[in-house]
């Protein structure tokens, strides 16, 4: 189990290589990588704010739950904060399990929780001004299936 909250960029490929070496024999490895979309060229950049005292513990709690529910042999969450440009990696989740269905379910579960329960807030800076991203009903609804 590993959680990293950082402003520095990361390389999803290197992270997957490292994660794979760590868990060889797990059978199934799933990764999710979130990338800043350019929204048809309207997005200049994005600022991600977070709650340092809460972020790490909140993500660790979510990861522990995922490990228990799907018997993961390993998991990884990386989430950035600070200024990000279109094309930049925002975050990454990796899960390893004996069974593909478990690795997929755990990765989706982690993503759904990160979207709505980890203390991050995004502000988009566009040609028209700066706006806080509002939470989507569909993201809240996504949590209900777990």
């Amino acid at each position: 189990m590993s959680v990293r909250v950082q402003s520095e960029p990361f390389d999803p490929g290197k992270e997957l290589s490292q994660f794979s070496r760590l868990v060889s024999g797990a059978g199934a490895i799933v990764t999710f990588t979130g990338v800043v979309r350019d929204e048809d060229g309207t997005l200049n950049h994005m600022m991600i704010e977070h709650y340092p005292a809460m972020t790490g513990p909140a993500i660790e709690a979510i990861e522990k739950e995922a490990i228990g529910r799907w018997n993961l042999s390993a998991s990884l969450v990386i989430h950035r904060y600070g200024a990000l440009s279109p094309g930049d990696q925002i975050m990454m989740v990796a899960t390893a399990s004996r069974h593909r269905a478990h690795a997929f379910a755990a990765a989706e579960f982690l993503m759904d929780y990160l979207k709505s329960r980890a203390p991050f807030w995004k502000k988009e800076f566009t040609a028209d001004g700066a706006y806080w991203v509002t939470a989507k009903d569909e993201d809240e609804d996504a949590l209900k299936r777990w």
Partner: protein
Amino acid sequence: MKKLMIDLVYFAWVRERIGISKETLETNAQTVAELIDELKAREERYALAFEDISALRVAVDQELSAFDASLDGVREVAFFPPMTGG
């Protein structure tokens, strides 16, 4: 009634409306809801930030909590809009 010393932290547009990210408050409030009423009565910027409670979330000592949560023994209360991570 025991006075409490509580750190308040604000994020995203709550922080922007109140104009500061952190402050320490001496309060008689026993619950989060009472704390919010006290803040709203203080100044217009707080009234504006806490105008619509349904648009807010609260964490008590770094745990997501309900607005009727007790402040007994609490050191830090955080107010923010729904999270938009991921």
